[in-house]
């Protein structure tokens, strides 16, 4: 038998769940977990910078960042295609790194700097990646496009001269059922050229 398991009370578990759970996910992505007291309230005031503007929402702990953006802030660029991190459609850039917003709790985004697809272009102009997608016709239904473009942006932020294998690796977690992958690779490489 051996030593009895250390008893964890439900309250203690819930106390740690938000920060610890999301923290583990963030550590995996190389991002330091947010500091601050654990959240227990039914509604929690969360604020972060969204596409350059400070925004705030009041959410239950169980609301994902994806749903805070889509349902509470009418920021529907990031899409809900699987809600469990298997398709990439909900990708946003948080504190400089691409994350799957469906796998993060909104309460853990407090104080973060978030960019969604809506925040890429300057007013009245398209981002070169967006231009490239249109020129290469790198979309059909467009539901995966937000995630793909944000994924490309993250790649090009880190690597200004990618090869096609770099693009494939960066987008490996993004699904497209219409089947536009090769055109997306072309668009990303085209954008990299133009952004040099």
């Amino acid at each position, binding site marked *: 038998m051996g030593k009895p398991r250390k008893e964890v009370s439900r309250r203690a578990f819930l106390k740690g769940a938000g920060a610890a759970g999301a923290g583990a996910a963030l550590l995996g992505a190389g991002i330091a977990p947010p500091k601050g007291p654990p959240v227990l309230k039914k509604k929690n005031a969360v604020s972060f910078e969204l596409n350059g503007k400070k925004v705030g929402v009041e959410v*239950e702990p*169980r*609301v994902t960042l994806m*749903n805070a953006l*889509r*349902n509470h802030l*009418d*920021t*529907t*660029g*990031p*899409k*809900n*295609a*699987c*809600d*469990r991190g*298997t*398709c990439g*459609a909900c990708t946003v850039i948080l504190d400089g790194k691409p994350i799957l917003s469906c796998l993060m709790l909104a309460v853990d985004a407090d104080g973060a700097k978030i960019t*969604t*697809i*809506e925040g*890429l*272009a300057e007013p009245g102009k*398209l981002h070169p990646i*967006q231009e490239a*997608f*249109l*020129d290469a*016709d790198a*979309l*059909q*239904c*467009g*539901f*995966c*496009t*937000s995630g793909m*473009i944000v994924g490309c942006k993250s790649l090009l932020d880190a690597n200004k001269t990618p090869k096609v294998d770099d693009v*494939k*690796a960066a*987008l*490996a*977690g*993004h*699904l*497209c*059922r*219409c*089947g*536009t*992958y*090769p*055109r*997306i*690779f072309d668009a990303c490489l085209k954008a990299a050229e133009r952004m040099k």
Partner: protein
Amino acid sequence: MSKKVKTKWGIEGDVKDVEVSIADDDVEPWGYDAKLAVVGGRHRRPGGDLIVTGRAKYTFDVNLPGMLWGKILRSPHAHAAVRRIDLSKAKAVAGVKAALARVQVGGHVHYAGQEVAAVAAESEEIAAEAARKIEVDYDVLPHAVTCEDAMKDGAPKVLENVENVSGGRRPERERGDVEGALKSSDATVEATYSTQVQMHSAMESHGVVVRWDSDAQMTCWASTQGTDAVRGQLAQYFKLKRSNVRVITEFMGGGFGAKLGPGPFGVIAGELAREAGAPVKVMLDRAEEQTAAGSRPNSIQKVRAGMNKDMTLTAWDIDAHGTGGVGGGWGLRSPMIYNFKNVRTKFAQVLTNAGSSCAMRAPGHPESSFAVELAIDELAAKLGLDPLEVRRKNDDHPVRRREYVVGAEKIGWKNRPRTGSQTGRVRRGMGLASSRWGQMVSTGAEVNVVCYADGSVEVQSGAQDIGTGTRTVLAAVAAEEFGLKVADVKVSIGDTNFPSGPASGGSVTANSLAPAVRLACDALKKEIFVVAAEELGVKPAELACADGKVAPAKDPTRSITWKRACGLLGGEKMTRSGKRFENYKGYTEEIGGVQFAEVEVDTETGVIRPRRIVAVHDCGRIVNRNGAENQVAGGVIMGLSYALFEERRMDRATGAMVNPDFLGYKIAGPLDMPAIEPVLIEMANGRNNVGLYGLGEPPVIPTAGAIACAVLNAIGRPVRSLPMTPDKVLEALES
């Protein structure tokens, strides 16, 4: 009333002067040598800017003031009678505004995932929590979720009072003497080929937002391939006038055949919205989408086939069955394009306690193609014949004949190794497969074209763009007619307030609408030429539109701008509509399509890696070149995903689907891509004033067959079961 016109139609190397009879009101078709400024070029998608900036609103994105979220409770059992449904605990959850039962007490559920009850609440999270608090008592009944289990003696009835198996006792089709032909053939093959249940897996799930605008009027945003179908069925269900139901699908995230009506979730949303007095959004989550929203049926095909040394296809005897779940819908198209001299087909449909099938991109075709193409290659291998020569000998379709030549050249068919001659660990092979599709059309489809006083132009259609680039086709045709650019034409679609367009199925959308656009433009040009002629001092019949100007065709230096001409019409705008006439004769009346695949097979791991796929297709007049190439490559990717990765798995004991998610149900991803080369045959086809036909389905048909034939070439053994996973390859190698 009709008139005769002269035109040229055909493909390179086979252009014919012909005379066709067209409707009096129709415009002359664009012939082979038509000089077109916009049509056939490469254009950016109208509406694409909204998509790439995240501003395009799909049904999933629609957020209305006061909107509630609906959540459906689904049966965990594959077969059960419902004894009790208690909604009270769900209704007691704070934030819940409506709840309903979908099954009566005493009623039955027939698959795990079937709708049982639903709630609407103030947030997605509360709705999900409340749905879990609905109490349902079931009397669990025996189920059968595989064909085998449903066909056994004494199998439980999948549906009450209906036999599990229908058909299969007598042949559907019988020609000649199959037994005699098999006996006397130079080579025969006798084998079972099987294909799997495939899920549509569109990235946007099924769903609606329903808002009651009054007791008798409703607006429904729907992720659908058929705005009119959703309107008609909602009107019928809720006993509303069709004029009082509006369906909006401005953008939608893929359908592939599964989204052709409001579905149970649509009427559930309507009921919840009515009870709650607030709009309700019901969007399926991924597990629901993969379980309860349609599928391509499977097939088990017992085949006996024969071929002679002179490449004559002597005999085809097929005894096949498969399941479309509780809803049926199973069917094959065997033996596809091939005319075997002696044929017998027997088909049986099996009901199983699983989600119902739905039409999926070229229903019956990919599954039939895989089996017949592989069987023919097995016969060819036995006789030492070139599979390409076998196709060429047995196919007189003028466009496919060209496609074989073009494709063989591009893939480098002359470098194809002899089947089974390789010995290394990684072996390369090539294969090909062909396809056919009908040039279907939705006659009577209408569009509006509007010219505004400032020269801006709009095309309006109630039809939807499911990703195929409908908007681009409509804009390109109008731009061509008016001498404008695609970017000058606004396209408003996906709203039943606009003229009725086709449902997007059967590859009909572009070809049903484009000719109607020409007619509407023609009617507007008649009006514009009258006022422009007066301004220029010429006769209207002398005028033409080009480069943003209206000028005499023979003297373009005397011109007024398009903008000025529209201003001369007087009034804020002028609207004309065009209607799709019937097709007339054409160069071909059957769509072709041939694909060549080159694969590598690792004989130690069993992994098949496609290296190149050359996909040669035809769509008549190419209107949107980017869109057409995109469509072909997209079909190839879905085809290779079907060939290698996808499969619905049912657990026989619990009756549940075990992989209703993207982890366990694998669709092709970025790392799975071979080099894909779409090639479009340039042609003028006649049949309508644009001469285009559909391309949505053909490119998904031959891919699995081409890959399977390439694998046979590489390893000398057939893998006769889809998906061709490594275990099956290793088993074939050991056989």
